[in-house]
């Protein structure tokens, strides 16, 4: 409630704008509510989901596209990692001679 209401003017305006009995008006609105009570709520709910869902979906799609576009590195090969040669560890098993221990023995 405001403190410095102009009561005289307020009362005169209230009389001027007085719509009369409100009961008919209230009944009319309640009748409208009874005939179509929930339909707008459904659309409100749907639109509130859409408001949050659409930006979230756009962000997820953008993130997925970004991850797919990243350059792929080949998977690490055990043979390359252990031996470093092109023929890999297979030569250990196929060579008729013993393995050459030179590289290890000559390491300072």
């Amino acid at each position, binding site marked *: *409630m*405001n403190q410095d*209401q*102009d*009561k*005289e*003017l*307020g009362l*005169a*305006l*209230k*009389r*001027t*704008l*007085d*719509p009369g009995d*409100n*009961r008919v*008006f*209230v009944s*009319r*609105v*309640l009748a*409208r*509510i*009874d005939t179509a*009570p929930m339909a*707008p*709520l459904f659309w*409100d709910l749907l639109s509130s989901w859409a408001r949050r869902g659409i930006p979230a979906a756009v962000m997820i799609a953008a993130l997925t596209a970004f991850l797919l576009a990243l350059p792929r590195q080949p998977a690490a090969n055990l043979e390359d990692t252990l031996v470093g040669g092109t023929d890999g560890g297979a030569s250990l098993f196929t060579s008729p001679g013993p393995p050459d221990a030179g590289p290890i023995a000559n390491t300072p």
Partner: protein
Amino acid sequence: MSGDREAFGQIMERYAGSARRLCRAILRDSEDADDAAQDAFLSAWVKLGQYDPRRPLGPWLMRIVANAAKDRRRRREVRRTDELSESMPSSQAGPDRETDRRLLEAELQDALEELPVRYRAAVVLYDVEGYSHAEIAKIIGVPEGTVRSDVFHARRMLRQAMDDWKENWK
């Protein structure tokens, strides 16, 4: 659901007068005003879930009412631009117009019609409905300082009309 409806019916009974007066102040036509008030209450019914019960109900509801009236006014102005002079209902101005009260009402009605719509809404919400400047600012969506200024100017013009009436008829 029926409990909600009953509770909403009580809310309407409490606020219907304020809502209809505000719509009349904005629209100046009783049928349009009641249609706008009805739109507002139906909209409030649908949006009831969005209402924060920690806040006062009046300003929340009156904001919906003001928006409904402004929407209707915009639509009406698009529809017809030449009928604005036909303002408040003729049923309001009955054969007993000669009585003092009716004359004052007519005088005030004319003065209201001269006011910009924002002044009308502000002064009715302030002096008739008793809302604060801050609440009215939220209801009609303008800064609080603007509301103060609108109420001041509206009062001055309406007071002038009341003084004229007193001079002529008292």
